[in-house]
Structure formats: structure tokens, C-alpha cells
């Protein structure tokens, strides 16, 4: 008798269907070409591309990277070749590699988001979803991040959803106490899911020169150091049950992924770990399958939201 369980890994977030809950985070995987050397990226639930702007962007002055305790600070400044480069150069490669694609985009104004949406109208059938990176500066609000002001999140989502009939994911920063409100307004505007967390703002200083260790003074912290912050944010948002959540922040192994699923995330992104263990996506996928088999769980969805909170009286 064959009693080996072949667990189902399929997950669904609104209209978005993933073959498994393991995806990559924007900006940590480029388009998968580099990692394809180490494993078949077509196995992943999805590959989120680096964030694209309307026109090419040079990025921030170096140094752009500073390692901290179990974490990395970065101030890359969203360097990219512009959306046309994705459409004509990288998209054909990704399709050829069999990747399920989440296209990450950002603009400096709502108008720019609209212009990018217009550019991707023709390729909408080739991508799974669009992720709006709303942690970038909004020039119409004095450079304050879009997601710092939930009404600005709504404006962007409204305009993109009205132009594109593909699922829209909204990626938010943990640096503002606006996640719930932004998620609610995003839902009203037709967004399909929320991605949290983007990096946490951080800083490091060289005590000998008294200079910041990043060219841009402050940067975004990622890696295992931020995982507890991410987990709490994901837990809090999942409790609200506003939209399905894609969780990310410091995932370095399948146990981290399981924690996010247990608090209610339906898919989990691998970010900084892609810099260190180049085959981490495949490893986590294999380890997750092995775990489900060992525990005799036939469907990964049975893990999602299983958190048991026992409120004890003081």
C-alpha cells in the first residue's frame, strides 16, 4: 500500500493562484536569471521582479550595503532599467524559464503609476499579478512614502485597478501605523492582496570617521533581525481579515515560513536569504513538503491561520 502523502501546496489569494506558497521578494532575486544557475525557478510559487519605474533610475550613491547583527541595511535607491527593459528584455526570459511572474512597479506620482500601467496593458496575460511598491517617495506629498498616507494608497490602487484587469498586490512598509487603514482602502479599491513587510528603516555609523555607513545615511533593514517585527505585523493584519496576506521578513528556512503561515499568511516571500543561500527557494520548498509528509498533513492550507492564542488573565 502506498501511504506516502503527496501534500497539496496550492494556495489562493483572492483571484491569484500560486502552485505553492513559496515566492521571492522584489529586489532580492532580480528576474531569476542569476538564481537559475542554482535551481529551477519555475518551481517557485512566484518570482517577484525587481521594482520597475517608468524610466531608468541610477539609484543611490554607494556605499549601499551595510551588514548589521543578523541583518542587512541597504540603500540601493531602486536602481533599474525602466519598465520597457522588463517588457522587452526580461519578460521573454522569465517566460522561457517557466516562472510565474509578479511584476513589481513603483512611481513617484500617481500619474507615473498610471503610465506604467498603460505600458503593461499588452503583457497583462503573461503575468500573474502586479505588485505596487508603495514604500517609495511620493513627490506630490513632499517625498513622504505613499503608504504613510492611506488615502494616497487608495488613489494609486484606484487608478491602476481601473486600467488593468489583473490582480493587484499592495506592498506596504512597517514604518507607519497605517497598514490596517491602507489595507482596508486598498480592498475597497479592488486590490487582491497585501504584501508585508518592506524593509524597516535603519542606520549604522562608523565610530572612527563619525560618518553614516550608508551613502544615503539611512536605509532599509532586512534579514533575520526583522523577522519578529514582520511576524507581528502579519499577525495583526491577518486578525483584521481585510485581504489575504503575503508575508515576508527574514525568512531563512522552512520553519520561518511555517510561522508566517500559522499566523495567517497565505504565501511567504524569501528576500535577503536569496543573497546568502542561492538555492534557498528550492530548499524551503523541499523542506516544507517533507514537513507536511512527516506530520501527515495533506494540504498546506490546513496550516494557514492555525495560531492558538490563549489569553491568560493577569
Amino acid at each position: 500500500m502506498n501511504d506516502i502523502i503527496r501534500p497539496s501546496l496550492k494556495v489562493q489569494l483572492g483571484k491569484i493562484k500560486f502552485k505553492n506558497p513559496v515566492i521571492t521578494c522584489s529586489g532580492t532575486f532580480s528576474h531569476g536569471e542569476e538564481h537559475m544557475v542554482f535551481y529551477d525557478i519555475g518551481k517557485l510559487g512566484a518570482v517577484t521582479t525587481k521594482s520597475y519605474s517608468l524610466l531608468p533610475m541610477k539609484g543611490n550613491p554607494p556605499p549601499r550595503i551595510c551588514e548589521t547583527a543578523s541583518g542587512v541595511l541597504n540603500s540601493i535607491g531602486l536602481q533599474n532599467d525602466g519598465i520597457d527593459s522588463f517588457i522587452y528584455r526580461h519578460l521573454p526570459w522569465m517566460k522561457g524559464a517557466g516562472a510565474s511572474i509578479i511584476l513589481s512597479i513603483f512611481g513617484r506620482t500617481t500619474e507615473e503609476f498610471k503610465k506604467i500601467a498603460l505600458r503593461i496593458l499588452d503583457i497583462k496575460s503573461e503575468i500573474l499579478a502586479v505588485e505596487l511598491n508603495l514604500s517609495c517617495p511620493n513627490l506630490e506629498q513632499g517625498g513622504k512614502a505613499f503608504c504613510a498616507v492611506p488615502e494616497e494608497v487608495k488613489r494609486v490602487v484606484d487608478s491602476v485597478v481601473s486600467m488593468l484587469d489583473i490582480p493587484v498586490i499592495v506592498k506596504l512598509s512597517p514604518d507607519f501605523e497605517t497598514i490596517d487603514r491602507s489595507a482596508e482602502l486598498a480592498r475597497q479599491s479592488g486590490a487582491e492582496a497585501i504584501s508585508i513587510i518592506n524593509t524597516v528603516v535603519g542606520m549604522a555609523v562608523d565610530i572612527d570617521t563619525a560618518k553614516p555607513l550608508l551613502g544615503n545615511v539611512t536605509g532599509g533593514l532586512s534579514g533575520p533581525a526583522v523577522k519578529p517585527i514582520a511576524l507581528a505585523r502579519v499577525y495583526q493584519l491577518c486578525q483584521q481579515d481585510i485581504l489575504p496576506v503575503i508575508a515576508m521578513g527574514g525568512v531563512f528556512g522552512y520553519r520561518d515560513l511555517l510561522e508566517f503561515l500559522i499566523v495567517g499568511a497565505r504565501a511567504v516571500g524569501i528576500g535577503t536569504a536569496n543573497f546568502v543561500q542561492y538555492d534557498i527557494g528550492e530548499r524551503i520548498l523541499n523542506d516544507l513538503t517533507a514537513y507536511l509528509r512527516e506530520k501527515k498533513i495533506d494540504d498546506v492550507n490546513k496550516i494557514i491561520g492555525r495560531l492558538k492564542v490563549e489569553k491568560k488573565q493577569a
Partner: protein
Amino acid sequence: MKLLNSEILSNQQYGPGIFKMELFSPYIVRNVMAGQFVNIRCAPNDGTDPLLRRPFSVFDIEERFNVFSVLYMVKGKGTGYMSSLRKGDTVDLAGPMGSGIDLNTGSKDILLIGGGMGIAPLNLIAKMALARGKNVFIMAGFRDSSLLRWERDLVRMEVKYRIFSEDGKWGEKGLVSEYIFEGDRFYKKHEIYVCGPVEMLKIIQEKLGRYQISATALLEEKMACGIGVCMGCVVKIRGKNGSFSYKRVCREGPAFELSEVVFE
């Protein structure tokens, strides 16, 4: 480029605070090109501090024994951990990485100018160039005699060299950059590779620039991934008409035309 576990054949002190680690890896030895590096995980097992891999130039290869080596200075947690490893231990590494330098073409005369630990990639260039029948001349400057042992390697390679040290206790007294340009004809004849501290690179860039002599600089920058995805290790490269772009040391580099590098 591959993820590999390599066995340490030796990990010995090379100078004060400086170690040479010899690793067994037929794959690296077969595939490495001059100028390339390996990215080493510097935490035990799945430890997360230090988190990132550390890039090290391949210093030397021994093809007969399938052994390559890296030279490293103990600076922080990562290199501290490396120095604690012993013969027989295993290292998690990836490589070879970066764009390699093709020594099969180009000038028959190679000039290598190094400063401090910058000699590490130049050592492999020297070895590979000599193996291709090229003439190699090395000029290297040091703060003190910490890397004294390297001279034995140079003698073994049968390469021509001049050593400078700031305290004058090893080779000639002074800075290698001060000795450059006793005649531009000499420099024009050579294919030049430079690696060392930014201050040294700036002076050499300025001096060679006066005579429009090109040189290849091997650059170092903090890296997160080493494979080209994070865009963290960029350097500013001059383009046409006053423009510039940021290029990745790990991918387009580590070798760049010295005159095009913008040092800030």
C-alpha cells in the same frame, strides 16, 4: 559558478593578522579566471551572524593538486571565524564569481601594481600570465612588513618585482605610487593591472591619466549577494559626455578601466 563545500587543506598564518587558506576544489581550479573571486559563508552551519558571505580574490591555484587559496586579513566576526577553522574542516563557498580577465590576448608585457592586501588578485594574474609566456613585472607597496612572506612566493614564481614599504624595513622606502612615472615609455609598453587602497588608485589614475595610459583596476566594495541581484556593490563609472552609471563590482567587475572609475 556553483555552490560548493570545500575541504580546508591548510589555514595558516601568513603574517600578523593575515591568513592563507588552502581549499580543495577541482571545480574552482578548473574554472577560475584571473580577477575572479569566491564568496565564502563565514558563519557556522546555518548561523545568521555574520549573515552575508564574504568575497575573497583567488590568490593562487595549484592545478596538480586541485587546490586554490585565498589570502585574508582578520578584521571582524567573519574573518575571525575563518581564522578559527582547521585543516579538515569544510567551508561553504560559491564561485568562481565576477568577470574574469582574459590573459590569452593582449600585451606580452604585464605590469602589476599592488598596495597592501590588493596583491591577492594580482598574485593569480602573475601566475596565469607567466604560464602563458608573458613577462610580468610587479611593483607593490606596503605599510609595513606584514606580508613579507609574499616575497618568497614571488621568488618561487621567478617574477621580476620591486617592493616598497612606508617604514623602509622591507624593500625600498616610500609609496609605490610615488615611484610611478620615471618614464612613460615603459608604462605604455605594458598592460597594467592595479589593485590596492582607494588613495593609491586615485594617485595612479591621475598619473597615468596625464599620458593617456590605460590600466585595469580591480575594485573592492561591500557586497550583499555577489551574484548580481542586489545592486549593492556598485561603483561609479564615467560614461560619455559627462554622464555616469553605477556598475556592479561582482558582475561587471571587479576589473574596470581605471580612467573610467569615479572615486568619491
